[in-house]
């Protein structure tokens, strides 16, 4: 099963932030309610959240608009990463959105919106992360190729982000 990380949403409806988002989508072989619960139930979430080798400790998880999920991710090398997620929309089993930061009062690094679509008993999950500014993204992708040493970086970035239009 492959994950498509795409430019402006292929399977997803276009949005006004399309020029500055990273979109990840995948179909899971499980019913929508279960997949939604996997995102929103602290017992479930510790079973899969984060990259390979990471574990998650939840200190507080209040899944409703304005509620907070405060958790620490423990990296395989022993580094701890505090995370502070504030939920915006919670519509079981269709939609979930949050602002993802590191601590209360800090500006969020990303806004994420997840949609859960039923596809004949399987579930398509589409996660959109909005990159803080389109301008920054446009700049690094389009205008920065001339910088020696930055070329690889910019190519990497261009792969991850949508190109306008």
């Amino acid at each position: 099963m492959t994950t498509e990380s795409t430019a402006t949403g292929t399977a997803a409806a276009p949005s006004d932030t399309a020029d500055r988002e990273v979109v990840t989508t995948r179909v899971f072989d499980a019913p929508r309610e279960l997949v939604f619960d996997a995102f929103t139930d602290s017992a479930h979430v510790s079973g899969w959240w984060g990259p390979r080798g990471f574990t998650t400790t939840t200190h507080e998880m209040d899944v409703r608009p304005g509620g907070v999920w405060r958790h620490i991710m423990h990296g395989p090398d022993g580094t701890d990463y505090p995370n502070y997620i504030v939920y915006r929309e919670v519509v079981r089993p269709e939609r979930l959105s949050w602002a993802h930061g590191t601590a209360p009062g800090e500006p969020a690094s990303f806004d994420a919106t997840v949609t859960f679509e039923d596809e004949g008993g399987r579930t398509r999950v589409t996660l959109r992360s909005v990159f803080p500014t389109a301008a920054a993204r446009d700049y690094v992708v389009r205008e920065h190729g001339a910088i020696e040493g930055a070329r690889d970086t910019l190519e990497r970035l261009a792969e991850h982000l949508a190109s306008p239009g």
Partner: protein
Amino acid sequence: MQQSTDPLSVTLSALADPTRRAILARLASGEASVKELAEPFAMSGPAISKHLKVLERAGLITRGRNAQWRPCRLEAGPLRDVADLVERYRRFWDESFDRLDAYLADVQRKQKESEG
């Protein structure tokens, strides 16, 4: 954009202005003086200087130390930080989804067993 002192936010807000991006694009082809930078933009020296201060604070440019002619030079480091952040985030979800796939299979198998 919220005012913030974290380096990434400072980089992003410095990049949010089209004139500043154009200045950086010009500096990508080599260092330049304030006067050279001001010409194509039809802006006053002070207006350009204000933009240069923002870019300098964000670590996106450095200025030469010669008092007569302080050439501006592009620094790519902060841009790399932005790119790295985006890449880390994408990898986070790719790998999380791999794990979620396995986890959901496991949960459903256990459910079947307990019903069975």
